[in-house]
């Protein structure tokens, strides 16, 4: 049974359809990548899976449980599925360690001392132990994004949604963030990520999905999507990526 099942999902903002019937499965321990032009609906899809947006049609299931529509246990859903954002969204009024410990404390009911200890252990693992007591704005973008990943991991999710987590970074900081994602992939973390880093997508993904104007036009193993894409639109998109020197 797939861990995340997306069945005919539609989403409109007012009268504007943004997702037009998306079908997609993510198996446990799989890494699935969403590629597609800006505005094709990648972020929206990820936000729907995390219950940050209501969907207008279809169904999303996580681990067999319905995770969309009325009566969804969003709290449980979010314990199972963590999310990392393009702009980090660290809480600027809390130290790094407090950022990481917040959810275990307020959601998991873990006592502060324990939560902060665990947070320090996690930060240590991504090489940020010495930054634990800094405020987020004292860190570089790459460091902030690493903290954001650690923060999402602190509640022990079984899957991660990563929304263009390197797009807001200076080029020289991208690698340190991707290294963590790679490590998570090797560790068997189930992940669904939107990215413009095609080389990285090719390397870590089990499956790549090309989204075009709210439609999932093509999906397949990375060798196929990057090697011999079937759809003209996929080819055109990848051509533009190559011309921009990003592949």
């Amino acid at each position, binding site marked *: 049974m797939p861990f995340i099942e997306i069945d005919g999902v539609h989403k409109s903002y007012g009268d504007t359809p943004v997702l037009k019937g998306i079908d997609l499965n993510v198996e446990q321990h799989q890494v699935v990548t969403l590629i597609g032009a800006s505005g094709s609906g990648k972020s929206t899809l990820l936000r729907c899976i995390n*219950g940050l947006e209501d969907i207008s049609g279809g169904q999303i299931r996580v681990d067999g449980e319905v995770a969309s529509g009325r009566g969804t246990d969003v*709290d449980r859903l979010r*314990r199972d599925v963590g999310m990392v*954002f393009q702009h980090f969204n660290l809480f600027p*009024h809390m130290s790094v360690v407090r950022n990481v410990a917040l959810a275990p404390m*307020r959601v998991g009911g873990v006592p502060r001392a324990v939560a902060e200890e665990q947070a320090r252990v996690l930060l240590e693992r991504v090489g940020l132990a010495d930054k634990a007591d800094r405020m987020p704005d004292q860190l570089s973008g790459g460091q902030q994004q690493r903290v954001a990943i650690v923060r999402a991991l602190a*509640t022990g999710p079984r899957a991660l949604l990563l929304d263009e987590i390197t797009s807001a970074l200076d080029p020289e900081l991208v690698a340190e963030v991707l290294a963590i994602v790679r490590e998570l992939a090797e560790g068997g973390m189930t992940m669904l990520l939107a990215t413009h880093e095609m080389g990285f997508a090719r390397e870590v993904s089990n499956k790549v999905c090309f989204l075009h104007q709210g439609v999932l036009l093509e999906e397949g193993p990375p060798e196929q999507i990057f090697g011999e894409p079937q759809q003209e639109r996929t080819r055109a998109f990848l051509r533009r990526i190559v011309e921009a020197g990003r592949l």
Partner: protein
Amino acid sequence: MTVGSDLLTAGPARPKAAAPPRNALPLAGTAVAAVLAAVALTAVTALSVMDAVPGAGVAVTAGAVIVAAAVLTQLRPALRAVRSSRKAAEAWAQDRRADARRAVSEAREDAWTALGWCLTALVVLGAVWFLFANDRAVQRTFFDRDVIGISISEIASAFGTNLFIAVVAQVLILVWGLALALARMAPGRAGRPLRLLATSYIDGFRAVPAIIIIYLIGFGLPLAKVPFLSSLSPVWFAILALTLTYGAYVAEVFRAGIESIAPGQSAAARSLGLSQSSTLRHVVLPQATRRVVPPLLNDFISLQKDTALVNVIGTIDAFNQSKIFASNHFNLSSVTVVAALFILITIPQARLVDRLVAREQRRGKGA
């Protein structure tokens, strides 16, 4: 022919004759004249004050000398401006253009500095002259030393009532304003009635002048014989009325603050599994509070001043107390005392707001 080649074939660029910088000499001359005029005016004012206050000759002379000396310090920049203007013309004639422009720029800055201080001196001299004009009538009406001496202690203690009203109202307003703001932002279909209610309240209480709310509550509640409420003292009527009025303003301040927090902050908190109320409490409100403090303090300053409005319902606050003195002595100096007390408490707060705003801007840039 295309536009492009049209542009390309346009005639050879002719070097434009450089325009000389504006002549600063008239401005510099004005500055010198202004300094001399201000010194002369100081002397004239001093003489008229001496006329009005016989026996204060030494003090007045000393004051006049200080003002005149202060104004005279501006003769230096004014004269320097004249010199710089001459140098600029010379430099321009010798084709040292950068030097010429720099000299003109210096001349103008010097001249404007001198003119600015002269204007300030003029305003001060004007105020002094006004005060002592008409055989000191103005000074005696507003600044009569005897009346001030008689009234000051009682007014100061009545001012305690103003402060009490302000402080208690501020605490209540914080609570009430936040409740209104949250009601106004109640989410979804179920929140609609609450939103409507809060919006009408806020619109209504911002529309009606505070003095009318105070009047209605101060006279209306006792007349209406509302249980408990009508037995309150006028001071508490005032607190109630100001809380109702300012709660509406502060609700809008809170709402603006909460809405100014990027939606990504809530999204991140919610995606971590925090409930709506935890998100508000631990993530949104702490950040909003920081931004809200300066506008909140501004509202509180204006609330403090509005405590003087309670005199319409007969509360003996500083203003009412001073009016009693004023009518007993046919003199407004006691009211001046009240004004001074308000200035005394407001200015530190105004400066604090400035500093907080500056800090907030630095923080914004640093991020």
